[in-house]
């Protein structure tokens, strides 16, 4: 059987944003690497499988020095997916691509170790066609069914509202605020994209962990009198406050 003549299919290329962890080396590189080693000894395997971007804006490195640094990180099981803050002319084809237009997304999230900076590659329109008019991205997410143990809802664009409960072992990670009308037994991480004004509201708090913009509290640090109560949590400076809702 021979294939019938194939019509060339039109290709669509879309841009998409992801949260990546950003490493910012400082001069002297040798000392910085030593500090990194000391840190990873305490949190072995932290970077394994995580997308990492290398921000070189704080240092001035030659092409060879950059290649050497990337190789050094590779030996530490840190895979660099892109380089930021470097002159594209310095980055040869053997190095990860240069990324631009990253948006800060707050400090390192202590829980999932992910949120650090949103990397937004610009979308590449398909050749020969006008890009589709961009529909505004929804800035809130509504979940009508309970969030079960083991499920992870990640919505960096904005608020998340859950009508049911969030089970123990489930997590909600939102760029904005989190509203839970059932019982929160799992984790809620609001303001993950660096929004310190984000809040967490829930109808009944039995949370394992609450986090806003990287500041977190575990169940153990929460006032026992707030347990099973309707609560809200917000940030005042570097302190997370939790109060009953009434």
């Amino acid at each position, binding site marked *: 059987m021979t294939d019938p003549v194939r019509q060339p299919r039109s290709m669509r290329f879309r841009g998409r944003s992801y949260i990546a962890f950003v490493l910012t080396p400082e001069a002297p590189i040798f000392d910085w690497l030593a500090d990194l080693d000391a840190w990873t000894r305490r949190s072995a395997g932290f970077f394994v499988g995580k997308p990492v971007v290398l921000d070189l804006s704080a240092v001035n490195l030659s092409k060879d020095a950059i290649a050497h640094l990337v190789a050094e990180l590779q030996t530490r099981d840190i895979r660099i997916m892109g380089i930021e803050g470097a002159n594209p002319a310095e980055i040869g084809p053997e190095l990860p691509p240069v990324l631009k237009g990253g948006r800060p997304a707050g400090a390192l999230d202590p829980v999932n170790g992910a949120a650090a900076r949103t990397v937004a590659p610009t979308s590449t329109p398909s050749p020969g066609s006008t890009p589709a008019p961009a529909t505004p991205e929804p800035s809130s997410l509504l979940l009508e069914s309970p969030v*079960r*143990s*083991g499920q992870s809802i990640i919505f960096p664009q904005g608020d998340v509202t859950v009508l049911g409960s969030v*089970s*123990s*072992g489930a997590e909600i990670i939102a760029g904005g605020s989190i509203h839970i009308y059932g019982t929160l037994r799992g984790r809620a991480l609001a303001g993950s994209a660096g929004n310190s004004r984000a809040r967490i509201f829930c109808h009944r708090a039995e949370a394992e962990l609450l986090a806003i913009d990287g500041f977190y509290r575990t169940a153990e640090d929460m006032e026992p009198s707030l347990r099973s109560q309707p609560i809200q949590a917000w940030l005042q400076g570097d302190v997370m406050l939790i109060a009953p809702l009434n």
Partner: protein
Amino acid sequence: MAQVLVVTSGKGGVGKTTSTAALGAALAQTGQTVVVVDFDVGLRNLDLVMGAERRVVFDLVNVIQGQAKLQQALIRDKRLDTLWLLPASQTRDKDALTANGVARVIAELKEKFDWVICDSPAGIERGATLAMRHADTAVIVTNPEVSSVRDSDRIIGLLDSKTEKAEKGERIDKHLLISRYDAGRAARGEMLSLDDVLEILSIPLIGVVPESEDVLRASNVGSPVTLCSPASGAARAYSDAVRRLKGENIPMTIPSDKKRFMEKLFGRRAA
């Protein structure tokens, strides 16, 4: 149209196999044809609980790999001629199950039987996901304790995302069966209350099986409790669960073992 039902839980030791046998026998007693399929390849137990361990020649893996026909592997129950068993292999592991092979066997079973009951292995890996893959209905077996409830919650999440029905955008019917319930321990607060379990899992309840020596005895003699001691609290709980599965609306009770209670009383007096 045949119904494919998966009995699953996430956690091990909560009573999946016992419940599969008891529900299968209770369904078969209503006159419908039932096959119970053991998906716990490598750690098969359903044949023991059904009392068919000495009659196994071919198994699920043989059928999947084309070494035997389905007819050769099916074992008919000696007590109920509407009840059949498709045993698992004890010498292989879960990797012997292929997605296509399982789909083919389930499709073939659906033509022959009114009910196909899949006894899922514990865990959330290959064996468990393949057992639930083609299900229309799920019975989630849960003990009233936190670890079991959390694992069941995880399994419900998988049922809503990894099954064929879920991938087509349909909803799989989920029913909760609470097993090993001890009214005394629940009253003393040593177990989660039924209300707590229902609140956390938020799926409809089809039965509460009391912790009972009859269940243990039934497993040891190789007979589903619904056949072995039909008057026991556990057997009545399973029979009621089957009626609810078939859509009957009967009030929820927790059948207790009156006989056992009398024995206890008697035993105490004698001592």
